[in-house]
């Protein structure tokens, strides 16, 4: 993402797996940080530290970002953003998506664990198209 600063916009949809321990909490944590204007920072921290996403870890990341801890904890414990997460999951199912991550790069679908180089190739193609 750093390479493409200013050229690429990322939109995030949550697709946490039902049977993984911390998937939902991590999604809640990202959105709770978003309420305090730090979504992107938390998104990056969670991905960098995955799979260390248990409650204590997530709270540590929130502290690192200087969040209001009372609001943050209440948010993740109260599943405040469950409706958004469920909406995203429904969208994923409706679109027949079964893998994470799945990317849509200007609408072009790229599934699962493709290499970073492959993603770059598509992004570069799209940037080139945009310049025409």
């Amino acid at each position, binding site marked *: 993402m750093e390479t493409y600063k200013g050229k690429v916009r990322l939109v995030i949809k949550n697709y946490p797996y039902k049977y*993984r321990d911390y998937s939902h909490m991590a999604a809640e944590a990202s959105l709770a940080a978003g309420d305090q204007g730090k979504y992107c920072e938390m998104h990056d921290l969670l991905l960098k530290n995955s799979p260390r996403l248990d409650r204590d870890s997530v709270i540590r990341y929130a502290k690192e970002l200087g969040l209001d801890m009372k609001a943050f904890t209440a948010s993740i414990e109260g599943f405040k953003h469950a409706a958004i997460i469920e909406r995203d999951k429904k969208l994923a199912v409706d679109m027949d998506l079964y893998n994470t991550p799945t990317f849509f790069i200007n609408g072009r679908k790229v599934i699962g664990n493709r290499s970073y180089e492959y993603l770059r190739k598509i992004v570069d193609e799209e940037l080139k198209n945009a310049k025409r």
Partner: protein
Amino acid sequence: MKTNLAAALIFLFAVSFASAEEKRFTVPVDGSPVCGPPTAAVTIIEFIDFQ
């Protein structure tokens, strides 16, 4: 006859593969978190599980 059928199948497979490659999906983005400028030439929508 069999060769024709095989050729037709290969042709159909190639066509569907090529069109699948070009297909662009529309994903609603309202109400979802965004990182990066709204003016960006490229939009990546990611479906992720952080874990």
